[in-house]
């Protein structure tokens, strides 16, 4: 019988560090109208936004918790801090950011990434954006990259935000969309004017430092006709015993013949309930490209949705989910074909190990208007042991004959022959399996900029250490 070694999981210390929070900066725990009004006061909300928050709160009370996915019983909403006052106002100069926050993002490599490979960076610490900067050459093209609160102070952008804010993800959508509408704070507003090509990516990084808190950032991106943008989102948090909550919202508007690539490397700590909602509306000839890597969180419900609303609109989703001990990650994607000649492609990989649970869940909907549309879904799952779980639950809802829909799913294990071959070439069993898993994840890493592909492969290597038991 084959003998296996056991190696402990190593500490992901590059993400697991923290600074003490001042309790006085935190609003009371729980979700009440008084707290919502306090958030609106803190943020100097315009009247429409305060009313929107209070209406969303009513919807939150009325809606039920989801009953079909991973258990969220460990999430006590009465114990969640929804807003933490910022230690500093938002800065455009890195040198002005307070030291502990600056140290946090420097450890995560954000300033270095900005210098080397990004057109602009936003950094959110707990509830508020603490730093935003955009390269002058990009700003000169008319690109706006700032936080929503700042943008709302401008009359022109305030109107634009009012027209788009939570229109794609209305607070009626589900309980945590309603919660988001009530308590949202921070996030990014990006506007790319008609015909502008932003050649290098923008990145927002979200860091939740406080224990037992929630982060509810709102990302609103409008890419006008014939424009191009690559936006990267990263997230992490230190590990605490108390449950934390991430209920962000991403709304993406892609104009005619425009392209938006939205890449995410999510590495929340493993006490996080990640109940995030992401949605894109794509106009005629436009394209949304999702690249998604999910590595962290205790529980995730995450299904980026593409609404293909203009003739010839396209969507591509490339995703990987890696679930280890104590994790139950329910991820996937949705696409709604709602115009003629639209096309979508979904390609996902999921890996389960050490007792982790993984569910790939998807929906392809083709409405009667979407004649001549095509969709292809491919998902593959890898089980690294029999302590883990891997499920695939893809749904299709087709309502026109003039559609071409394909779907394939596979589930299996690492081939013994492949491991044997690599071991015969001098690799240890652990190295061989890590290499095979990296290859399995290649569909995602090749879609990422080099620096992020390396980070993702490092995460896989970290997760694989100790998987041979």
């Amino acid at each position, binding site marked *: 019988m084959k003998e296996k070694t056991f190696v402990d999981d190593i500490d992901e210390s590059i993400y697991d560090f923290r600074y003490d929070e001042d309790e006085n900066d935190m609003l009371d725990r729980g979700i009440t109208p008084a707290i919502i009004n306090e958030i609106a006061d803190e943020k100097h909300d315009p009247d429409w936004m305060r009313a929107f928050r209070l209406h969303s709160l009513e919807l939150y009370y009325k809606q039920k918790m*989801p*009953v*079909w996915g991973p258990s969220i019983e460990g999430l006590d909403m009465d114990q969640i801090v929804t807003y933490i006052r910022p230690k500093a106002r938002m800065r455009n100069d890195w040198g002005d950011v307070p030291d502990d926050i600056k140290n946090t993002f420097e450890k995560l490599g954000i300033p270095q990434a900005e210098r080397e490979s990004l057109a602009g960076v936003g950094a959110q610490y707990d509830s508020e954006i603490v730093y935003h900067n955009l390269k002058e050459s990009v700003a000169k093209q008319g690109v706006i990259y700032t936080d929503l609160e700042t943008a709302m102070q401008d009359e022109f952008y305030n109107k634009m935000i009012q027209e788009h804010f939570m229109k794609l993800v209305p607070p009626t959508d589900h309980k945590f969309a309603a919660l988001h509408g009530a308590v949202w704070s921070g996030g990014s507003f990006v506007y790319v004017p008609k015909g502008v090509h932003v050649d290098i990516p923008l990145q927002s990084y979200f860091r939740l430092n406080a224990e037992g808190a929630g982060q509810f950032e709102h990302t609103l991106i409008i890419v006008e006709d014939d424009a191009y943008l690559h936006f990267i989102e990263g997230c992490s948090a230190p590990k605490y015993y108390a449950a934390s909550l991430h209920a962000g919202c991403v709304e993406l508007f892609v104009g005619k013949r425009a392209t938006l690539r939205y890449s995410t490397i999510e590495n929340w700590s493993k006490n996080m309930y990640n109940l995030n909602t992401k949605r894109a509306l794509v106009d005629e000839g436009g394209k949304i490209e999702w690249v998604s890597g999910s590595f962290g969180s205790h529980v995730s419900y995450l299904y980026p949705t593409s609404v293909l609303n203009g003739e010839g609109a396209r969507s591509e989703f490339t995703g990987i989910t890696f679930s280890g001990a104590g994790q139950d990650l329910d991820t996937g994607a949705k696409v709604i074909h709602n115009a003629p000649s639209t096309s979508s492609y979904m390609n996902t990989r999921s890996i389960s190990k050490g007792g982790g649970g993984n569910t790939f*869940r998807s*929906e392809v909907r083709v409405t*009667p208007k979407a004649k001549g549309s095509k969709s292809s879904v491919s998902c593959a*799952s890898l*089980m*690294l*042991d*029999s302590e*883990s*779980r*891997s*499920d*695939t*639950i*893809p*749904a*299709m*809802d*087709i*309502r*026109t*004959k*003039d*559609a*071409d*829909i*394909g*779907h*394939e*799913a*596979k*589930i*299996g*294990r690492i081939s013994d022959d492949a491991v044997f071959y690599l071991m015969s070439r001098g690799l240890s069993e652990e190295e061989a399996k890590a290499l095979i898993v990296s290859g399995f994840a290649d569909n995602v890493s090749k879609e990422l900029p080099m620096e992020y592909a390396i980070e993702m492969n490092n995460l896989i290597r970290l997760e694989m250490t100790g998987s041979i038991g």
Partner: protein
Amino acid sequence: MSTMEIKVNTLSSPTMSRLKLNNAIMTVSAPESIEKPKLTAADGIITGTRAYSGEDDKEIFGSIKEHVVSFSKDSNLLVAEYKISSDSTADAMLIDVADNTSATVVVNYTSSVRKGCGFGGFKFRTKLGKNSSLHIVQLSILPDGTLYTNIQGDCGDDSMLKLTTVCLGASKAYIGADCRLSGKNSSFDSETAYILGEGELLDMNYNCDHIGKRTHSLIKASGVMKAESMKNSRQTINFIKGCAGSIGAESEDVLLLDDDIVNKSLPVILCTEEDVEGEHGASIGQPDEEIVYYLMSRGLDEQRILDMLSAAKIQSAASRISHKPTLELIENYLGISEE
């Protein structure tokens, strides 16, 4: 006549409620009579009746007696012919297949009225001994009405439950099967074929639990949808920890002939065992233009071509049926009888 709403075809692992696929709600008239089928079998196969002892569907079958069927010799055949009238009816069978025995049960649902069929609910609970096999063939040709059928199987070592379902009519048909592959090397092989006419509904739920080592499952569905028809297809393969060496596959092939259809599919694979292989494939769309063009170039008109393509979707399942009278019913329906 009282009506009741019954939850049927429940998914073993629910998904987003908004998709409305976690189960089906069937609205039917309460069964007023026990269906008296024409049962044809050799002596000793039908051993009697007893109170329904199933744990589910008690709303439909709770007040009836089920036939007790016991196969203990090779080459066994039971044919059940149900003629559904305007009344609501129900029937159930408890089928036991002894070790080293092969058997076939053919069930035909036809109508005794030209129009105005009521509700028919039918349940077959089966237990397969070691090294046995059971092939259940179901054919539905109803002008309208509501049909509910559910098959449950529990398979011992080296046994096989084979299921062939051909659905060619019923206003609403709810068809399901739930197979437990408890024994090592046991297998479940299900193939369903259907043609959905104007406004018809077909709601399917096939579930297979892999429990024993080296178990195999294949769940196939193929069919044709015409105007304003609606189809829900749920297929679930569940690899349960301990079923090492098991293989499961699901496939679906749907030909869409008209607009205004609603075609929902949910192929599910659940897995808590590392050493398995599971896969699913689906192909949904209208007839291949090149094939239609080629056949038209050979002198066939478009309607004839569509009829041929529809018949082709049925013929794979039909080829598994060796009971000639049932085959003739299918061929007559499709208009492909040689006579």
